[in-house]
């Protein structure tokens, strides 16, 4: 939450000569962050971020209190001015002119406090310039004094208040019953919107069970001030924070009042706000106090003390802070402190419910002492050696470096995909679905990286021969449990199949993975799909797949966990051959659709001295192979090779109807 605080308004509560720049610098170091200073209506206005636990600072006076303590730490004189609110309020009218208070029935379980007063004869005067200026400086709308006073005192003192149209309220029966709404009741807010309750919202009701206010959140039309308002009931209540939050979130009515009250505003503030409100109504709208002040405060209690040892404080801070320093910091923050031996008992003020455990006390000492005053050192404790299983960031980085070095672009695409993209992989039912997506192109948790990468290639038509890759999770659901999060390596390319396969092969060589095999998936449903397998420790492992997409792009997807099983940190070193190697080319004409991989295997199987068969070139149906002959034990000679030279064409002819080009 941010609050805007004009400097001059602040000085009504704070006695200091500090400049706006000094205040910004020092307060940001030890307290709330003053993010910016605006110049509005001739004054510096602080834009201050208040954390959710410090609703006590969501007012001019609350900020003044914080600033006073902090500036003193920097030897800048500052003090919180005493409150100038007039405490004694008398009824201004004769007994006959007095107006009766409504009949109020509070439920202490729902509201900690309820206080109100009737103000009669309000004039709809214009909001005076000084107040209008401050409202503008703090980003609020200016209406007229009767309405603006409530916003003004809330901003100044930090407890929301509400002005009812007294006569409208009395016409509804003159009762205020604090209750929880049942399901299906309706109410309309003053801006004309109608809501139906879900049950459990704290509401004010009249005797006829009608909702006449949504307390601590927003007024309802049937009791709100309008143009004809003559008399006002100024009321403050302290609805339980979680109840306020429930109703405000349920109906998405996020008023300033709700955002304050859901964070436990100190009910003690209500008295000052009411008194200040009365003062302003009298002076700015010529109102008269027409009733006694009603105040029921069943929830009044002091906060529980927090016990902490000096030793514990110093363990957290790593310095040797003295007891009197601890005591003085806490007392400046308006805590009461009792110290005996090592044990410190802290009694927080009612506006600091955030101080409830020892670590909260540590924080107060640390921040006021100043984080900038602490030394900065690294740990000398033992370094853990127990690493997470199933991850290998070194291999991930190595793959990323390798693929990007050989021309592939790494991509980060969204894990959530549109219905259209999801359907490219599987049925929608087989995907995890986000129940509250932000945009309709990010709804399903993807099961494959391929469609996302394909989409990215399509979005970059200006780049020819584009190959992209991504290492990211896919999320196959598990019923009744979290989904699997399987890390995949995906590659999609507009290059030809041999080139993409070559990328995979050289990647695997770089990871010291033994030779891969592509097993064709033969099914009438799919075509051009192969499974990438390797032999690892004598066992066949399926690492993933390679396929030709309908768009003619080639896609590869590899399961990272399986890849990790097959990788090695070093090669299986082979000494260079000591005996001579013979290499020769042979060209065959293969009938269409002959699987060249099988042809190569057939040649290899003919003899153990055929150690390597490579496809050198391919022209139409003519395939030229480079055949390597090698024997570890002796130099291979023509005598050894001659019979094989004859055998190869014979065998290939019989299996594949392959015809040798030329003669041997």
């Amino acid at each position, binding site marked *: 939450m941010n609050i805007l605080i004009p400097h001059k308004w602040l000085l009504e509560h704070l006695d200091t000569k500090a400049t706006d720049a000094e205040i910004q610098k020092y307060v940001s170091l030890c307290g709330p962050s003053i993010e910016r200073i605006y110049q509005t209506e001739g004054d510096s206005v602080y834009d201050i971020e208040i954390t959710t636990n410090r609703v006590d600072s969501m007012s001019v006076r609350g900020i003044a209190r914080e600033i006073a303590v902090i500036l003193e730490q920097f030897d800048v004189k500052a003090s919180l001015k005493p409150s100038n609110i007039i405490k004694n309020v008398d009824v201004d009218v004769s007994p006959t002119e007095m107006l009766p208070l409504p009949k109020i029935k509070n439920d202490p379980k729902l509201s900690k406090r309820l206080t109100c007063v009737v103000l009669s004869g309000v004039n709809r005067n214009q909001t005076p310039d000084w107040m209008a200026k401050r409202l503008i400086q703090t980003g609020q709308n200016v209406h007229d004094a009767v309405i603006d006073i409530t916003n003004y005192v809330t901003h100044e003192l930090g407890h929301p208040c509400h002005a009812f149209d007294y006569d409208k309220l009395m016409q509804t029966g003159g009762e205020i019953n604090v209750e929880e709404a049942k399901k299906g009741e309706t109410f309309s807010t003053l801006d004309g919107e109608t809501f139906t309750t879900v049950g459990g919202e704290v509401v004010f009701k009249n005797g006829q069970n009608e909702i006449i206010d949504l307390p601590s959140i927003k007024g309802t039309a049937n009791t709100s001030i309008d143009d004809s308002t003559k008399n006002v009931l100024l009321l403050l209540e302290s609805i339980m924070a979680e109840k306020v939050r429930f109703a405000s979130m349920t109906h998405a009515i996020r008023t300033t009042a709700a955002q304050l009250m859901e964070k436990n505003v100190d009910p003690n503030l209500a008295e000052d706000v009411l008194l200040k409100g009365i003062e302003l109504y009298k002076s700015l709208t010529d109102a008269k106090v027409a009733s006694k002040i009603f105040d029921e405060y069943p929830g009044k209690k002091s906060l529980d003390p927090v016990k902490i040892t000096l030793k514990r404080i110093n363990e957290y801070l790593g310095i040797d802070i003295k007891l009197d320093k601890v005591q003085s910091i806490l007392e400046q923050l308006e805590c009461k402190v009792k110290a005996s031996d090592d044990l410190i008992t802290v009694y927080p003020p009612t506006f600091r419910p955030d101080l409830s455990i020892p670590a909260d006390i540590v924080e107060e000492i640390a921040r006021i002492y100043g984080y900038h005053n602490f030394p900065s050192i690294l740990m000398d404790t033992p370094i853990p050696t127990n690493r997470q299983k199933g991850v290998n960031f070194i291999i991930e980085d190595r793959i990323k470096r390798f693929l990007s070095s050989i021309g592939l672009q790494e991509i980060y695409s969204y894990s959530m995909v549109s219905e259209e993209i999801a359907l490219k992989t599987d049925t929608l039912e087989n995907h995890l679905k986000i129940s509250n997506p932000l945009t309709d192109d990010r709804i399903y948790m993807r099961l494959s990286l391929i469609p996302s990468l394909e*989409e990215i290639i399509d979005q970059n038509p200006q780049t020819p021969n584009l190959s992209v890759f991504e290492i990211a999770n896919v999320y196959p659901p598990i019923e009744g449990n979290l989904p699997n999060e399987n890390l995949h390596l995906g590659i999609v390319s507009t290059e030809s199949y041999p080139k993409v396969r070559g990328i995979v092969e050289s990647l695997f060589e770089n990871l010291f993975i033994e030779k891969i095999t592509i097993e064709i998936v033969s099914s009438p449903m799919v075509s051009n799909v192969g499974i990438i397998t390797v032999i690892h420790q004598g066992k066949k492992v399926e690492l993933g797949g390679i396929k030709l997409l309908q768009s003619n792009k080639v896609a590869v997807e590899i399961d990272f966990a399986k890849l990790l099983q097959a990788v090695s940190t070093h090669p299986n070193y082979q000494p260079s051959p000591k005996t001579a190697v013979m290499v020769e080319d042979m060209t065959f004409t293969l009938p269409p659709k002959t699987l060249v991989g099988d042809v190569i295997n057939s040649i290899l199987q003919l003899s153990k001295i055929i150690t390597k068969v490579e496809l050198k070139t391919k022209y139409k149906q003519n395939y030229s192979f480079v055949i390597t002959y090698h024997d570890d034990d002796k130099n291979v000679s023509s005598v050894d090779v001659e019979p094989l030279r004859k055998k190869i064409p014979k065998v290939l002819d019989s299996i594949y109807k392959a015809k040798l080009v030329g003669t041997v």
Partner: protein
Amino acid sequence: MTEMISIEQLELKISDIKSQLEKEEGLSKADLQIKYLGKKGLFNELAKIIAKVNYQDKKSAGQMLNELKNFLNETIEKMELQKTKVKWIDLTQPGIKPKVGHMHPVSQAMEEITRIFERIGFTRARYQEIDWDWYVFESLNMPKSHPARDEWETFFIDAPTDKKLGKIVLTTHTSNGQVREMERLNSKAPIRMINIGRCYRRQQDTTHTQMFHQFEGLVIDKGINIQHLKGTLDYFAQEFYGPGTKSRIRPFHFQFTEPSLEVDFSCHICNGTGFLDNEVKKSQDQRNKCKFCKSGWHEVGGAGMVHPNVLKAGGFNPEVYTGFAFGWGVERTYTLKEGLNIDDIRLLYSGDLKFLEQF
């Protein structure tokens, strides 16, 4: 009387012959050999001089002549080689670059972050992106319907709620790894984890993407204090942004740390001043304010001492152990690097090659 010759004079003559050879053009190898090393060649002519050298200098003169002979031989060989091998090339013609791709900037940032933290004993981890409400919020001291949850715009998965662990959500921060790391280590110190992972929040504008990455540090042991947190943050800032970088920590509030801190790094655009001009004399409202930062500082992320309730949720006794944690966005931390000036974080996930190819 025979005219005597000094060693210096001999040296001069030798160097004359050397440079004469080096300037030769047009003669064949054979011609060169005749001219310099032939019977009546320059070398032999010179060698005759030795008779005119003082007796005591004869030895050095002999060595010098020997060296000259070798030089002539080698140089004639080399000149021959040059003639046959070297052809003219245009050294000003542009290069042909091999085709290279690019590692994504987020990967580059993560690699750098990992390296920085590993050097001071952190172990990298990665935890669930899709996790139970328990790990994302509840175990981090954020009970259901707590206002603090508002800041984490959460995506929910359409799946049944678990009685104990709650709803399934896309994790909004890497902090879900805190209790998970404590559980993985069976609640045994030391913990010094750097958890880098994908996170998701329901927001999208120039500084937010629905998907982003965070890195989360978690240190738990006996005797860990605020100074260690400060030391770690300072170390990172200096390593990642360079020695000139200032860092500061300020009070903040998170449910899962106490004390809680906001971490700022000085803005490199305005050098931490908050203003783009140097006219200090002008009043604040007249000066040209830096639009990239908040008064000279960039908020990078949160940090703090691990809340006792979080330690308890992870099985550590908060009376005995203390710890600190921090969590920052990878993208935000990275884009603050000097000179990067990426004004729209969504570019990172656009898949636009014109952007990605620059990294």
